[in-house]
């Protein structure tokens, strides 16, 4: 079916749903291939056992758990950031929130599967439901990830209802699906009001859930007795890291789809400037946490802790550690604090660096501790096997595929919010501004409404 231009103001936002280019199909084929390869790797692992991985003793948790923490971290891009931006009434959020929320939904589903991939006996997973023990941090994790997934899917869906209604009213493809999902939305004032109310409740709820998710993941490590893990700072440290990698991933996705679907008019330079500033702030915050964590360890100089510390700083993991410092601290700070380099390209480079760096950070937290047990065992060097790499590649391509699939069914930028911004926010914001200023707000309100009528 060819694309009908209905001459909407925001036609660009509808276009990707109805028009598909050739390169899109090629990408789908390639990514599906990678995904199938990863699936094959997993089946091999199922049949052969976890021996197919590079894990050993004492490094009994490795790639899968690193990826698990990493993906769940990325998922904080979305819902958390979008909720914070909505809550603080940041007007520039409008074209960003939808993409952020989609990232959360997809990545959370993928990340949440990783512990299952990591199980030695996935066939016994139901034991968690029959006779799980709530005192184990793994169960807390299961609970909070499920809660976060449910909450963020609902939080993605409800603000999307008006857009689905728009799509439904256009007619054409997937009529029935839109009809079902639009929930009879017609845009009456009362409907709008109900929707707004629900969004408000959700965004207040989603923030503590999101924070709890990553705190609990940190506690999986923090609750153990192991050197390098047993630290009170881990909860907030992981949350900051999660937001950090989340923003970076969001920037990458935004830039990619801006290019792909020609959203230049909606995602302007200014949006990236703001996100870049946010990234810079979180970068400094992350550095502060990292510094605090390692300095206290070093000053305490406990032998078991120091072995892990040395392993990271000068031992086998030094290249990873210092690379992480480079791409997580030095590079973003230099790029983002300099006007000349803080362009869209510069921000993209910094973001890619941060995503890699945050993956390394998870690696550096998890493996050195396991590789240096308290008692004198031979410390092995862990290298991932093809199986693990294949599954990681499959997870990444599943993410991209999911995102691409989503963009073919739903608009990637919230259309009604853009319209709303155009129609009423300019007026609202100027009124809000008047309220901040000295003088009587009442007068200002009257004045503003008079102006609006004119």
């Amino acid at each position, binding site marked *: 079916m060819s694309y009908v231009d209905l001459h909407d103001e925001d036609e660009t936002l509808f276009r990707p749903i109805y028009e598909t280019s050739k390169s899109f199909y090629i990408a789908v084929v390639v990514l599906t291939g990678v995904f199938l390869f990863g699936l094959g790797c997993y089946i091999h692992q199922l049949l*052969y056992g976890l021996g197919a991985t590079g894990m050993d*003793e004492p490094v*009994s*948790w490795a790639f899968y758990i690193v990826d698990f923490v990493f993906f769940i971290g990325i998922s904080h891009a979305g819902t958390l950031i979008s909720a914070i931006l909505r809550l603080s009434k940041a007007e520039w959020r409008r074209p960003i929130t939808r993409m952020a929320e989609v990232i959360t939904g997809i990545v959370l589903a993928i990340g949440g599967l990783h512990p299952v991939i990591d199980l030695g006996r996935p066939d*016994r997973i139901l*034991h968690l439901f029959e006779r799980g023990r709530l005192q184990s941090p*793994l169960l807390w994790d299961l609970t909070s990830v499920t809660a976060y997934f449910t909450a963020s899917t609902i939080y993605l869906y409800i603000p999307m209802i008006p857009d689905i209604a728009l799509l439904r009213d256009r007619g054409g493809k997937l009529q029935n699906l839109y009809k079902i999902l639009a929930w009879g939305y017609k845009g009456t004032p009362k409907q709008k009001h109900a929707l707004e109310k629900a969004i408000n409740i959700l965004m207040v709820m989603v923030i503590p859930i999101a924070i709890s998710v990553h705190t609990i993941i940190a506690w*999986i490590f923090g609750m153990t*007795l*192991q050197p390098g893990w047993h630290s009170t700072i881990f909860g907030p440290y992981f949350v900051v890291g999660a937001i950090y990698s989340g923003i970076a991933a969001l920037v990458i996705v935004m830039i990619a789809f801006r290019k792909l679907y020609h959203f230049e008019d909606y995602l302007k330079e200014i949006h990236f400037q703001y996100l870049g500033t946010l990234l810079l702030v979180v970068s400094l915050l992350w550095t502060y946490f990292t510094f605090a964590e390692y300095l206290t360890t070093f000053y305490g100089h406990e032998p078991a802790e120091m072995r892990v510390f040395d392993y990271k700083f000068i031992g086998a993991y030094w290249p990873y550690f210092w690379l992480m410092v480079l791409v997580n601290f030095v590079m973003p700070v230099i790029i983002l604090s300099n006007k000349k380099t803080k362009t869209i390209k510069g921000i993209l480079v910094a973001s890619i660096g941060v995503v890699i760096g945050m993956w390394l950070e998870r690696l550096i937290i998890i493996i050195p501790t396991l590789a240096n047990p308290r008692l004198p065992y031979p410390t092995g060097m862990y290298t991932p096997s093809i199986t693990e790499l294949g599954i990681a590649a499959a997870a990444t391509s599943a993410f991209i595929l999911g995102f691409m699939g989503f963009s073919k069914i739903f608009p990637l930028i919230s259309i009604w919010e853009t319209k709303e911004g155009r129609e009423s926010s300019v007026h609202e914001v100027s009124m809000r501004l008047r309220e901040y200023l000295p003088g009587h707000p009442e007068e200002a309100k009257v004045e503003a409404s008079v102006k609006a009528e004119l």
Partner: protein
Amino acid sequence: MPKYGMVIDLNKCTSCQACVTACKVENNVQIVSEDDAQHGRAMFWMKMLTMEFDGDYPNIKPKTLPRNCMQCDEPSCIKVCPVRATYIREDGIVAQIYPQCIGCRYCMANCPYTVKVFNWDRQAQPKEVEKTYNPDVSVRPKGIVEKCTFCVHRLQDASEKAKAEHRELEPGDYVPACVEACPVDAITFGDLDDKKSDVSVASRDYRAFGLLEELGTVPKVRYLNAIE
């Protein structure tokens, strides 16, 4: 209820590793392939650890220590298990329920002694080994965690036997395989709560110490320091 414990005298121990072998045979512990062994996946419930090297090359005197599961009274492995595949019995033995374990390896990550071993895969065992399997101990499938259980099957045997003979379980009725195998009687085993038993006396010796006791795990396997 008795509280089983063990004291290993490092003065007597000659590092002959008889206990290591006895344990492996007694408990049908899997023999892994050479590849896996090189990869650090060799499975031992009892292991000889080299704690430190005294002296200069070539006159090195390694200090060794046989290490099984410490059977902690406050075990950190149990705290984190999501399905109660590992639990502490009333007689203090930290046991493992193989059909329950989902293989998440959280307990491995949290045991400060790195005691637990995982069945990364299941290899065909040599014929001779299969013939000599201990019928009292189940052969573990791939994907689950296992560790020293103080040969809990022997306790079962012993108490059934005592019951059949209409008597109480006596000290010496039940000893793990490693204790039995030790040629120099370096390992004492028995009821720690019975103040007059050999283990209890030995565990209060001035040379007695527990590995990494400072972590608060309260190990029930204790050592007598080697003194020249």
